[in-house]
């Protein structure tokens, strides 16, 4: 119903001063994505622009709610730009507007924003991939699985490297130390964020309800192959031999492997 579109436009206006400014300069363009009725457009345009800004901390509260799941990535991003405007600009980004328009999780929108922000710190992509996988995993936990064998709800697979994991841990440790005395943020001699070098040894991660664990490479490859196969058609236990053969893995009893992966909670069978 149309009032939901008006509600979405209001949400964007309450968080994005640039949108409010555009609303009065070029309302056609600013409001085009919301497809409002003429009367709804008129209602929104009739609002005193100052009213959108009365709660100046509203965007900060949203960031406070969503940033903890991407805390290392945010730390790396802000350490690079040394400007909080980097965080504030999230609300003017296509990622935020798109999330509001399409009812998507804001955490994932923030991850998309950081990924597209043109940042150059080499550790950021790896750290962001890990934190994003954790965020996706938490939101996937309640998924109702489809027919056949598939990754269990809440499981995400991620190929990464030891450098990304170390950078994630370094950023988290840095934030912990700052949190001991937030007054440090006021000081020019506050400790800098020191990240270990990027790269390192490949590692294969499974994220289960937001928790990371290391997987042997063959197991990672197996789960990945099942995940891919399940996107094409329901996977039966009898399909396991072919799936394993396609990735050049040989196991004595593929169906028993499937049973073991089900028992370990990596797979589900619908």
């Amino acid at each position, binding site marked *: *119903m*149309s*009032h*939901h579109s*008006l*509600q979405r436009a*209001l*949400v964007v206006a*309450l968080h994005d001063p640039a949108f409010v400014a555009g609303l009065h300069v070029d309302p056609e363009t600013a409001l085009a994505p919301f497809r409002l009725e003429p*009367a*709804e457009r008129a*209602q*929104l345009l009739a*609002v*005193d622009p*100052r*009213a*959108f*800004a*009365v*709660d100046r901390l*509203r965007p900060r*509260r*949203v960031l*406070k*709610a*969503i940033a903890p799941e991407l805390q290392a990535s945010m730390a790396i991003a802000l350490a690079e730009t040394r400007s909080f405007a980097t965080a504030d600009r999230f609300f003017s980004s296509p990622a935020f507007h798109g*999330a*509001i328009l*399409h*009812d*998507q*999780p*804001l*955490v994932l929108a923030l991850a998309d924003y950081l990924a597209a922000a043109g940042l150059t710190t080499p550790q950021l992509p790896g750290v962001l991939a890990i934190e994003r996988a954790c965020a996706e995993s938490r*939101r996937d936990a*309640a998924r109702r699985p489809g027919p056949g064998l598939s990754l269990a709800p809440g499981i995400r697979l991620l190929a990464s490297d030891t450098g990304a994991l170390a950078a994630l841990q370094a950023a988290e440790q840095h934030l912990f130390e700052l949190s001991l005395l937030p007054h440090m943020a006021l000081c020019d001699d506050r400790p800098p964020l020191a990240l270990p070098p990027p790269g390192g040894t490949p590692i294969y991660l499974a994220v289960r309800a937001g928790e990371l664990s290391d997987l042997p490479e063959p197991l990672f490859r197996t789960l990945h192959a099942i995940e891919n196969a399940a996107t094409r058609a329901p996977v039966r236990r009898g399909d396991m031999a072919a799936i394993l053969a396609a990735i050049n893995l040989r196991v004595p009893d593929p169906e028993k492997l499937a049973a073991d992966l089900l028992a370990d909670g990596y797979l589900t069978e619908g």
Partner: protein
Amino acid sequence: MLAALPRLGVGISAEFDSSRRGIDALALRAAEPGLIDFLEYGCDLARGLDDHARRWAAAGLPATYHFLDLNLTEPLDADDGWLAATGALARELGAAWLCGDGGLWHFGPRDRGHETLLPPVLTRDSAAEMAEAIRRVAEATGLAVLPENPPAPIYLGDLHILDYFALVAEGSGGGLLLDCAHLAIFQRMMGHAPLTGLDGLPLDRVIEIHVAGGVMRDQEGFAWVEDDHQVEPLPDTWEIFEHVAARAQSLRAVVYECEKNPPDQVTDNFRRIRATLGWSSASRASE
């Protein structure tokens, strides 16, 4: 369902961890016998009951549960998981009913800690959806659900907020929670007198009333009211409360939302509320 609801009397609000810095309702009750009868506890499922609410429940005292994580304007937001967990939490608290602002507590999927309250767009379609959501929650939890008129600096839609909630009550067949402070905010923001539109609200559906402090603010010359729950309600809030209290024949509960303040600063307003209602703790117990 409404006729069977108990009269809870005069209550105090609490939110997760609010008693650590604000008012401990059990301590206030002990220090000022007859001042408060029940606790209205507000939280989301991510946080659940705090020690304060558990102690209140353990004492066997009356309570209501105010959810802070349901978009009551979106019937599907009350998914099976939320319904089951909220029903269980309310039972653990011993809640006589559920209530919550009729609006949006989150954007997109429910997530941790959003709590960014927005009012509904005030249209007939939206009111019909809220009524459907209320019926759904009430049916699943077995508890009455009282929608509350929310505060905001901006309201969109073609209806007066009281006409909107009159439609919600008609569609849900249920009761209403009238927040007098929030209504005072709406009336000021829309340029209405405090009592405008109350003749269109079915006052016999008003089961609960909220009274709370607010303060006038200025944003670059734009005057607005912040619903800050400080001690002193605006004069408009008192005017609305006194008008409605005298006419709401089904009224069962009044909450003074003051949990963040020093206890000694709120007692006079509790007494003023009691005097207006003519409700004493003793008379409540005898009913």
